[in-house]
């Protein structure tokens, strides 16, 4: 029996800041201190607070150490584990209760307090490479319950009643999808999982795969039972090596326990799963393209109908759900549809995971009930915007979504409200932008992405998005006129109406939504040839305010283009002559602004 357990995050975020080395260093230090029979090191999945990684949690105290380095391991072992003295300098400051000089539970910190973790409930809490730990937290009990106590129709009814909608973005009712597939008679059916997760900025699916892979396996087996399928495929991108590895370990363990394979729970139900690796094409997140890719063909979409529930993978009835959707299934079966439906808003039930990124203090993963406001997520849970800057907008839904301006921060986030304000839920990427962000530039960024990722099968998307990007570049270069803006808007409508699949149909969304809320910025670029946020380089000029210049010459030394030279002018009250910038040579890198101690260099 171990008296203490040290949980170290092995998610992608913390691994990239050397948590693997911390695990090794910790184990070595524990062995050296002779504690190897008393203290256990557990590698977990992502705990969500990626901004503070690498994260180490020591139980039973529940001490939350943040930004740990391999060199800190020895101190944690010798002080905390050996002598019971908490290493205060590494403790996450919001868990310190200054009044009593004690450690608060993590659940009382602003980041976790308003969260409700269902899909992420095991992430960061269990060792994802040990099936027993999953089973200890009610794992596979839902599969057991479904197989031994429920009919397939009852399973589907429970999922329907829960109100669960697809977490991949479109929000289609999951139970309905299952019902359609169950209703189609066929000799073979398939259950598929979309773990392609292509939206820039979204990483909740990866986190679930890395932190709780059995939750996915269990849910897919339940889905197989519900629709009458005995084979499933998990389509995951090869760019997620840790996730793929843990998934394979989990599949092996599930097979060894007979939770996959023949005659599961002695009920005659057979089910097995295979992993298919995607090469990371964004279009393969679209369901028909994904299935074409699993079949071994080039990942291109095809027109619907027929829908996958009728004719999907290899021409057989298929259901395809996203990782996060599946991660809710076992809990719904165990706790009942009513429990799940009691959370969220009228038409969007349960919780949603958001990947917080951009200009925000607590970058990471949060799971909140549907209907939480953007303000709560950004200001309370996310800790607000660093360095005192103002919130400008939040981008949701990735390249298919749109921007939410500051005026709409109090809208309750659910599928329908987001659509109404011109954005969409998408997979849950939430990129926060401060006042220094140019909205035209953001639209251009997403268009660059869709131009790259368009599969090329249909013309509106292949050619249309490229023309849109050209127009946007013209605007940010200050070369556009108002007629170009009209052309851009017409193109948006055309591409939306005529593209074959979701990629093209939603590609204009970033432009449409920024035009809706930030039209004045587009006009400033076009008519005044100015970028109000000061982000579009081609519209910026750097200059020295000569009367503020002390002539120290720091700027000239930092300039990589030798564009700053000294003049004859000595400002009143100064001793040395002022400097000036040669705009013809200036490459607008901004290095000089960073070095000037007197704020004498401005860009406008």
């Amino acid at each position: 029996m171990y008296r203490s357990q040290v949980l170290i995050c092995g998610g992608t975020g913390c691994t990239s800041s050397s948590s693997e080395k911390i695990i090794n260093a910790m184990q070595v230090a524990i062995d050296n201190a002779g504690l190897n029979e008393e203290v256990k090191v557990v590698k977990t999945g992502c705990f969500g607070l990626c901004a503070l990684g690498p994260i180490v949690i020591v139980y039973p105290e529940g001490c939350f150490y943040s930004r740990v380095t391999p060199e800190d391991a020895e101190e944690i072992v010798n002080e905390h584990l050996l002598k019971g003295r908490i290493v205060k300098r590494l403790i996450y400051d919001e868990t310190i209760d200054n009044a009593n000089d004690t450690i608060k539970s993590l659940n009382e910190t602003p980041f976790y307090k308003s969260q409700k973790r269902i899909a992420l409930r095991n992430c960061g809490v269990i060792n994802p490479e040990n099936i027993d730990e999953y089973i200890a937290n009610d794992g596979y009990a839902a599969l057991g319950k479904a197989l031994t106590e429920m009919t397939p129709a009852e399973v589907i009814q429970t999922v329907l009643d829960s109100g669960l909608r697809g977490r991949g973005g479109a929000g289609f009712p999951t139970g309905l999808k299952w019902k359609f597939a169950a209703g189609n008679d066929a000799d073979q059916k398939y259950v598929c999982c979309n773990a392609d997760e292509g939206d820039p900025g979204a990483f909740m699916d990866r986190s679930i795969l890395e932190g709780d892979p059995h939750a996915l396996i269990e849910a897919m087996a339940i889905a197989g039972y519900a629709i009458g399928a005995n084979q499933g495929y998990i389509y995951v991108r090869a760019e997620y090596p840790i996730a793929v590895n843990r998934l394979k370990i989990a599949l092996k363990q599930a097979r060894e326990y007979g939770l996959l394979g023949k005659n599961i729970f002695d009920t005659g139900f057979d089910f097995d799963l295979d992993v298919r690796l995607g090469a990371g094409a964004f279009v393969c997140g679209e369901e028909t393209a994904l299935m074409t890719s699993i079949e071994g063909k080039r990942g291109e979409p095809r027109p619907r109908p027929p829908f996958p529930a009728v004719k999907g993978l290899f021409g057989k009835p298929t259901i395809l759900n996203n990782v996060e959707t599946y991660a809710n299934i076992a809990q719904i079966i165990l706790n009942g549809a009513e429990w799940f439906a009691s959370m969220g808003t009228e038409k969007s039930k349960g919780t949603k995971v958001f990947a917080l990124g951009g200009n925000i203090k607590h970058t990471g993963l949060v799971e909140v009930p549907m209907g939480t406001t953007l303000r709560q997520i950004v200001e309370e849970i996310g800790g607000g915007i660093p360095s005192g800057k103002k919130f400008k907008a939040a981008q949701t839904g990735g390249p298919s979504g749109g921007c939410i301006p500051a005026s709409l921060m109090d809208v309750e986030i659910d599928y329908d409200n987001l659509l109404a304000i011109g954005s969409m839920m998408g997979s849950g990427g939430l990129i926060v932008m401060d006042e220094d962000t140019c909205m035209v530039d953001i639209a251009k960024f997403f268009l660059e992405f869709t131009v790259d990722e368009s599969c090329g099968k249909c013309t509106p998307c292949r050619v249309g998005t490229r023309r849109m990007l050209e127009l946007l570049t013209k605007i940010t270069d200050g070369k556009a006129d108002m007629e170009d803006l009209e052309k851009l808007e017409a193109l948006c409508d055309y591409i939306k109406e005529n593209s074959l699949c979701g990629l093209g149909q939603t590609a204009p969304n970033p432009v449409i939504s920024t035009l809706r809320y930030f039209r004045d910025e587009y006009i400033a670029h076009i008519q005044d040839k100015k970028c109000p946020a000061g982000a579009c380089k081609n519209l910026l000029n750097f200059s020295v305010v000569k009367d503020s210049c002390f002539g120290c010459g720091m700027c000239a030394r930092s300039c990589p283009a030798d564009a700053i030279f000294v003049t004859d002018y000595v400002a009143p009250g100064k001793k040395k002559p002022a400097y000036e910038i040669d705009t013809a040579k200036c490459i607008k890198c901004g290095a000089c602004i960073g070095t000037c101690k007197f704020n004498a260099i401005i860009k406008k």
Partner: protein
Amino acid sequence: MKSLAELKAIKEKAQAQMTARENNDDGIRVLVGMATCGIAAGARPILNKFVDEIAKRNIHNVKVTQTGCIGICQYEPVVEVVVPGQEKVTYVKMTEDKIDRIITEHIVNGKPVTEFTIGSYKD
């Protein structure tokens, strides 16, 4: 996996290994003095025995942790038992054979073992 009973057996076995990770702040706390004085007087076997015995008896809601020196080094090993809402009880000159009674009488049945406490200690 052939039955729910089989799954339950695995669950219970695994849960016993994970009790240390329970996040309950309102449970009973057993604090073992593990400063240099405590360790020198033999606090580590005491700490481990507490952990083992509590796990063996399948008692939940109890957190066994270390604490620093509370200044009565001559009485080490010192163990404090804190039951929420009650005054903490300090056991001194702990030995492994005292643990059994403290768990049964104090932690399980709520009656401090007065004869082991600091108040009853005589040189």
